[in-house]
């Protein structure tokens, strides 16, 4: 068990190292110089050199990367005019654009993204499993075309179209809801939910379709299994067979998918965040890429990578918990 844990952590660290290295490499291949952008109009070569030094860009790429890694582990000091700014570990540096610590920026944005992702995922799983189970039952066969249609629509329609439609319907036509504006859960839970409900629905329309299809297929397969026949032969009522035997089998593949989806939603629901004006991680990333704001880009990518790695581990654990045949190695 401890060996397993060590292997997993070592693997995660390697993935994150590789990710950050790739981002650094890409950054130095980019044709634009962030120092020029920061320096602004009327920049003299002397000032540009100063800016470079302040941003740490005067060193070689490899040295910069090394300093970055050092900062992550031990913290780092930045020259700021005559003084020195200390950035405590884990230090991801300061944004070129706004001069704020990247960690602070992320800490600011993450709750927004997490709220969006968790809510959307919960809603999708509930709707997906519900609709999928219904469609998988013989009695509700007639729902099949409906679910299939929804699945296709979910795959085909982009999220901003769904979002736009929802906004038009609920905020403009019916005026049931205000235009979304993020309110922290800790400030007012009710307003938090009220403002997030539309983005949740927009994402769930698309995600739940996949889950419904997977549940339906899994259920159909499970109902044909020998152990379901055994349960019937021993007189178990159909409803109980569905609950304790068939659904269990159908849910196994769903577990992995859900965990991975959750991780990717946290960092890359850019379209939804933009559509509904949510200041989340996705928006931060897009802005940073446009401004060649290296510390922020690296910070967001590392956060994403970290989430994916964690989600992966959680998925594996859940997988082993749901199916006793699975052994973690």
């Amino acid at each position, binding site marked *: 068990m401890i060996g397993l844990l060590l292997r997993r952590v070592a693997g995660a660290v390697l993935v994150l190292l590789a990710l950050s290295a790739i981002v650094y490499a890409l950054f130095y291949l980019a044709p634009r110089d962030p120092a020029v952008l920061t320096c602004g109009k009327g920049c003299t070569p002397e000032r540009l050199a100063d800016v470079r030094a302040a941003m740490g860009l005067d060193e070689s790429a490899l040295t910069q990367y090394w300093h970055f890694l050092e900062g992550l582990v031990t913290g780092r000091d930045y020259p700021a005019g005559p003084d020195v700014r200390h950035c405590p570990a884990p230090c991801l540096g300061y944004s070129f654009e706004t001069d704020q610590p990247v960690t602070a920026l992320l800490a600011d944005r993450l709750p927004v993204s997490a709220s969006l992702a968790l809510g959307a995922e919960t809603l999708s799983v509930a709707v997906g499993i519900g609709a999928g189970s219904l469609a998988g039952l013989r009695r509700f066969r007639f729902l099949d075309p409906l679910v299939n249609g929804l699945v296709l629509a979910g795959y085909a329609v982009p999220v901003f179209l769904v979002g736009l439609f929802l906004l038009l319907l609920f905020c403009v036509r019916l005026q049931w809801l205000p235009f979304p504006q993020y309110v922290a859960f800790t400030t007012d839970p009710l307003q938090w939910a009220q403002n997030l409900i539309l983005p949740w629905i927009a994402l769930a329309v698309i995600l739940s379709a996949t889950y419904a299809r997977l549940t339906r297929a899994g259920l159909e397969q499970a109902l044909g299994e020998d152990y379901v026949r055994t349960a019937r032969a021993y007189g*178990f009522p159909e409803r109980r067979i569905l609950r304790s*035997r068939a659904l269990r089998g159908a849910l196994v593949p769903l577990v992995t998918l859900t965990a991975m989806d959750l991780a990717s939603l946290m960092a890359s629901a850019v379209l939804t965040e933009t559509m509904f004006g949510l200041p989340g991680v996705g928006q931060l990333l897009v802005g940073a890429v446009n401004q060649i704001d290296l510390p922020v880009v690296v910070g967001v990518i590392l956060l994403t990578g970290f989430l994916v790695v964690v989600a992966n581990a959680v998925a594996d654990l859940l997988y082993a918990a749901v199916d*006793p045949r699975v052994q973690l190695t």
Partner: protein
Amino acid sequence: MTLLSVRDLRIRFGATTAVDGLSFDLDEGGALGIVGESGSGKSATALALLGLHTGATVDGTLEFAGKPITPALRGAEIAMVFQEPLTALSPFHTIGHQIAEVYRLHTGASRKAARARAVEVLRQVHIADAERRADAYPHQFSGGMRQRALIAMALACRPRLIVADEPTTALDVTVQAQILDLLDEVRTTTGTALLLISHDLGVVAGATDDVVVMRRGVAVESGRTDDVLVSPQAGYTKALLAAVPRPSSRREITGAPLLRVENVRRHFRQRGFRSPPVRAVDGISLDVREGETLGIVGESGTGKTTLARMMVGLVPPSSGRITLGGKDIKQRRGRSVQMVFQDPMSSLNPRRTVGESIADPLRLQGHATPREEATRLLERVGLGAGRYDRYPHQLSGGMRQRVGIARALAPAPRLIVCDEPVSSLDVTTQAQVLALLEDVRRERGLTMVFVTHDLAVLRQIADRVAVMQSGQVVELGEVADVYEQPQHPYTKELLAAIPVTDPVEARRLRADRRALAQRAG
């Protein structure tokens, strides 16, 4: 008193009739066997008894203790034991939980009482350390133990009838004997009636009082097991009995060794760097003489298939040497050695016609007229030129195995290695394929290695036999010697487990096994 009464049972799947007017009775505490080949409707009958058909129309009168059979009887009064114990148990729940669940469903007992009952029935089917093993999942049990667990589940509610559908088909021969003995023991100790369904006359012979022989949905003969299997009346029953493999006359083999296996090992590495390798074949030396048929027998996991694959060069040995006519097998692949595989369905390309599959090795050799030669081979194995353009799925199992044999013969090999070539076939088809193999062997002067788990088949076809256990040959000798005077305890155990079709002999063997077990325990 009659417990189960079936009158004029008809089962139809759409336009095809699976069972056509079947009637039989089973007395309280009695044992009835239904025997027939695949497609005879015997399993459809079992499912109909419990109302488990989903896509079929079932007509006729099914009565249990004088009343029509209702779903409420399922599990409580009539319990079923299925063929595949791995898939028949839920992989997500522990064995004990599944048994307890059945007990609670029908008795409303408390969790604790149900658990106690589960442990009790597991003990009754001789699961060692039942208290602890009840918490194991099905995949942590061996095949035989899983089947015991299923029987325990059947016993949980003290049913009056157990329906066992091919309960031993997926099991090794020694395990099969144990399960059949267990079913017999359960019947005598609990007074439960047994309906035993099997394709194997030997399985039915020792375990039942009465028997119904089915063919294509109709009972062709029924009566006391002792009468039907000893002096059958119906032609089909006679044919079935005649198809059971029987000893052949002794042959004098004078040929020099053709295939030499010298101290061969094959180990497979396991996942995880500290786990020891699987020693599939662990130091085997033997010769196959020109013109002889060497039988290799063993249960699953004894390494016999690995050995067979090494003999044709499909798997390289980890150490040791295999030579054919003095040359290392590595350099002689293809032409001089060929293999006939166990499952012709998966060893034939489903997207190629069977004729093409036979012609392929000929083309590889640069044969001038591959199509003509392949057609000739098809005719030789009894299929007719018309089948050249058929695909594997359009043929029956027996026909597919004939194609497999034709393909092996195509490059005109000197040695054919057959790996379980008849184990997936019905007994009459099995007899035909064995006869075909014997014919072509004689005709072409072939040398043959015949790998099987079935001792009865080997006795008919082999000249010498090698008994394998855990990767080693524990006994090797002339067939007659090994079968008459087995030396190794494992060989004795195997021989005692062979199902025989003579009911009297079957009962005697069971008594022998019990005595052996008592002495051991």
